[in-house]
């Protein structure tokens, strides 16, 4: 499959497509990781999943469109960096690895400013919020769908309808968080 078509289909929010793509490079990644880093298979799976999540988020946010490498190269590059991070956190710093890392394609990993405790509280509030508000907020803020795309995916009349609903859903979420004394 050509790079472009893969990217477009990946942006369709189809779980089957995500699963297909995950499985497409999974076994190759596992073989490569176990051989290169002499790690346990469970560690390799964990790193592959982390790499896949970063890859997904970068595709969804449009940060990946300018990259010159293909999906596989990109996934493996993130995975490699993740392995180095893991090695570093185990205090086994190797300056040669830093040099290798500099030659890899750059990727951006979103870090959260808020504490995990607060983020967990928002997650709980989202589950209380229920459907369809939770889906609308998730599609807009995490999956980075446009208002038009959400309208199409969720059968709303148009983008302004979704925008209006999203605003109401956020107000509701805010109220729940106030009641939970998070704000």
């Amino acid at each position, binding site marked *: 499959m050509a790079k472009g078509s893969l990217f477009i289909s990946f942006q369709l929010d189809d779980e089957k497509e995500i699963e297909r793509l995950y499985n497409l490079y999974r076994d190759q990644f596992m073989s490569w990781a176990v051989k290169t880093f002499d790690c346990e298979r469970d560690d390799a799976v964990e790193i592959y999943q982390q790499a896949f999540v970063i890859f997904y988020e970068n595709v969804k946010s449009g940060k990946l469109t300018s990259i010159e490498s293909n999906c596989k190269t990109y996934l493996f590059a993130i995975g490699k960096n993740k392995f180095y991070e893991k090695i570093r956190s185990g205090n086994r710093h190797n300056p040669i690895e830093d040099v290798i890392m500099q030659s890899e394609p750059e990727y951006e990993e979103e870090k959260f400013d*808020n504490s995990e405790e607060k*983020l967990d509280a*928002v*997650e709980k509030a989202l589950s*209380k919020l229920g459907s369809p508000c939770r889906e609308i907020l998730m599609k807009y*803020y995490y999956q980075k769908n446009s208002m038009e795309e959400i309208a199409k*995916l969720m059968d709303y009349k148009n983008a302004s309808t979704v925008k209006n609903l999203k605003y109401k859903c956020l107000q509701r979420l805010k109220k729940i968080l106030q009641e939970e004394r998070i704000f």
Partner: protein
Amino acid sequence: MSIEENKYDLIEDYILGKLEGSVKKDFEDLLRVDAELRSSVKEYKLMIEGTRYSGRKKLIGFLQNIEKNRSKNSRPAGTMRSLYYGIAAAIILLIAFYVVIDNSLQKSPVKLAEAYYEPYPALYGSATRGVENNLTELEQAMNLYESAQYQAAIDRFQKLDNTDQQELIIFYMANSYLGLDNFNDCEVLYRTVIDTGEIFPTQAKWYLALAYLQDKKTEQAAKLLQDLVAKNSEYSEKSSKLLKSINYQP
């Protein structure tokens, strides 16, 4: 759009890095002197980050499930034969069950509608159940609807005069009447949503089709189902299956 919504748009654009140039500078100047605005930015940032965090956890959970399924599919050969026999037996039973059910359902649009019916979820969920005193009238009505107290929900919806929420109120009243099997009243309200609504017309078509089937108006149901199939909505697949099941011939 209200002043509050405009303010929210600006805050969101700032958090998402969409503000540029002088607008961004003006906003940041205002942030320095306006404690209330700073507090709002902080709140919205937490809600946006929390949603992303939740989305990430959901995706990781999905990937972990893929791994679990892979593990299940790669069981040792010794257990495979008995597993295959088990699966084969289950499939035969399922097919037999399906044939019996399908035959009986094909004869009964009413039963088909019941099988496909799931109440439409309350828009705001049951977020504040247990703290009834703090709820708005609309939230109270939604909670009654969600707990299937349809007549009480209708009574509460009827008292509401939120002019900006009219479509939502009518749609949920229609859903409540459907929950009570009051097909005449739900038809009138669903038709209003289909003809004049902006948010729920597709959903209204689906539920009205189910109401028609339960009311033995198969032809009217089929027309709505055909519309839904043609529109390529989230109801298309279900509508297509339902149309085949009722074996409708125009």
